[in-house]
């Protein structure tokens, strides 16, 4: 549905998007992930024909953004970062205006507006001034505006930014309900967003794609190859954290032990194994043999958050030892290009 090849966008002083390529199939929901200023918005603006690319090609539904912008625009619903609203208009009035703008005939506009407003749960604010709406409602009006003409492709730039948790969940559900008939690209810097609503994720940093994978793939890949991280809480009377630490360090396969927390008689440690080795049974056995109580033992999973930080070169949350798979992955990402 969407095909981008070697897309580059250069501004006067810097390169916003540097030679990126990707493809999105029909009906897919793709998350565009990256820190602020990574080039997400720029890429979206190119796809929506708001601005032309410096070089490279982008096409939507087979129409090139440079050659047939008109056809592309007809097939795209776009929600920019700040919803493009006119505060002096009423919701219904605004949606009717957008419907007409998108080329929907006057006699059909009312029906479409009702439909879109219904889907975004805007029925009860239709006669309210947009200026009087809360942020969450504004976002919904923005979404309604994007789906009015029933476009093949929906491009949503940070659809949940600035919303409260309840509104985020509502928006997420709304996006999920829109999937199926629409191909959706949404950008975000909130990772749980992608985990929740997307099938595929494109991680972009400094204008380059550093990973492009399905969400499940990405996490399992990171998890499988990497070392096992375990958080373990041990409790006993007069427990000396250093003792526990020493004992754990002697277990074969353990590469690093760190005392995280000491509380009265309980100690929480973080244990890291060598790649591919499972040390959990050994840890449990060691605790029992020493006569301590094992309060808790849980694996520390790499969240998308960690993967993201590693790929984008931020400070790793987990540990420096995890860096090796990360580099592997970014290599893979580059090969995918």
């Amino acid at each position, binding site marked *: 549905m969407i095909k981008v090849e070697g897309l580059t966008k250069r501004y006067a002083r810097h390169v916003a998007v540097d030679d990126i390529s990707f493809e999105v199939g029909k009906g897919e929901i793709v998350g565009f992930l990256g820190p602020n200023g990574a080039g997400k918005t720029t890429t979206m603006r190119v796809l*929506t024909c708001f601005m032309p690319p410096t070089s490279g090609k982008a096409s939507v539904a087979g129409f090139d953004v440079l050659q047939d912008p008109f056809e592309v625009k007809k097939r795209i619903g*776009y929600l920019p970062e700040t919803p493009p609203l006119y505060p*002096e208009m009423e919701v219904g009035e605004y949606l009717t205006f*957008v419907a*007409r*703008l998108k*080329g929907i005939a006057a006699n059909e506009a009312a029906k479409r507006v009702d439909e879109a407003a219904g889907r975004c749960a805007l029925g009860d604010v239709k006669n309210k001034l947009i200026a009087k709406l809360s942020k969450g409602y504004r976002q919904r009006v923005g979404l309604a505006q994007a789906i009015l003409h029933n476009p093949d492709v929906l491009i949503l730039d940070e659809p949940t930014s600035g919303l409260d948790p309840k509104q985020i969940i509502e928006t997420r559900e709304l996006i999920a309900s829109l999937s199926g008939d629409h191909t959706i690209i949404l950008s975000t810097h909130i990772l749980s967003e992608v985990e929740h609503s997307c099938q595929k994720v494109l991680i972009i940093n400094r204008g380059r794609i550093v990973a492009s994978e399905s969400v499940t793939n990405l996490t399992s890949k990171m998890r499988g190859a990497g070392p096992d991280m375990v958080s373990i809480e041990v409790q006993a009377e007069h427990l000396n954290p250093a003792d526990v630490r020493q004992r754990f360090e002697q277990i074969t396969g353990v590469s690093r032990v760190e005392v995280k927390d000491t509380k009265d008689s309980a100690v929480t440690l973080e244990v890291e194994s060598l790649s591919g080795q499972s040390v959990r049974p050994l840890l449990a056995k060691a605790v029992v043999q020493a006569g301590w109580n094992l309060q808790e033992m849980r694996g520390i999973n790499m969240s998308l958050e960690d993967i993201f930080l590693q790929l984008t070169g931020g400070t790793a949350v987990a540990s420096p030892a995890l860096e090796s798979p990360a580099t592997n992955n970014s290599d893979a990402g580059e090969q995918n290009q």
Partner: protein
Amino acid sequence: MTNIWVICRKELKSYFSSPIAYLLITVFAVIFGYFFWRAIAYFVQAGMEMQMSGRMQPMSVNELVIGPLLSNMSVIVLFLIPMMTMRLFAEEKNRGTIELLLTSPIKDYELVIGKWLGSLIMFLVIIGISCLNILLLFAYGRPDWKPVLAGLLGLILQGGAILAIGTFISTTTKNQIIAGSVTFAVVLLLWVLSWLNFEQAAWAKVLAYCSVLSHGESFTRGVIELKDVVYFVSVIFLGLFLTERSIESLRWRA
């Protein structure tokens, strides 16, 4: 065509759902009303004096009242127009709604003409207020209506031209205040240019020819001159053309 109308209607609604339309109408009505009253008072006084002195001469409402009023109007309008055009694109850019407009399946020229047409209709509404005053003259006297129409046509052409310039200036900035002030400065310049007519040099003549005011004059006397019509139509065209180009360059720079 439909797209132009959609944009135009939206612009009109924006004018009337903010105080700006009512403010402009009121200001214009008050100022024009004052000038109207002065002109009538002068006319009546002159008529009385003539009666007293016994030297009766034909007095023309067209020449003594309507002509001066129309040329007054064309000056007042110069000052009102920046306030009408400053928001046209600057506001869209500031609010980010320009993204909606530029990613919708409409052509840039439709957007530009729609916006300009919206402001022109707003302008016509303002002018319409003054027409009420002039209609009063028809109720009590028998002025010739053809020069009035010519004068109004001149006013509309002049308004359209300045609106086009203002529309262009509005695309160059996000800030309405800047758009308004620059438009005002340019309009003032175009007005002042006619003073160069007293110079003898060729360049002065050329510049003076560009003045809006020198082209509006003959209309107020009820004369429609082709060169003036051509002047205004070309300024409108130039203004809208530049606007369209500016929108396009916006895409490349954005």
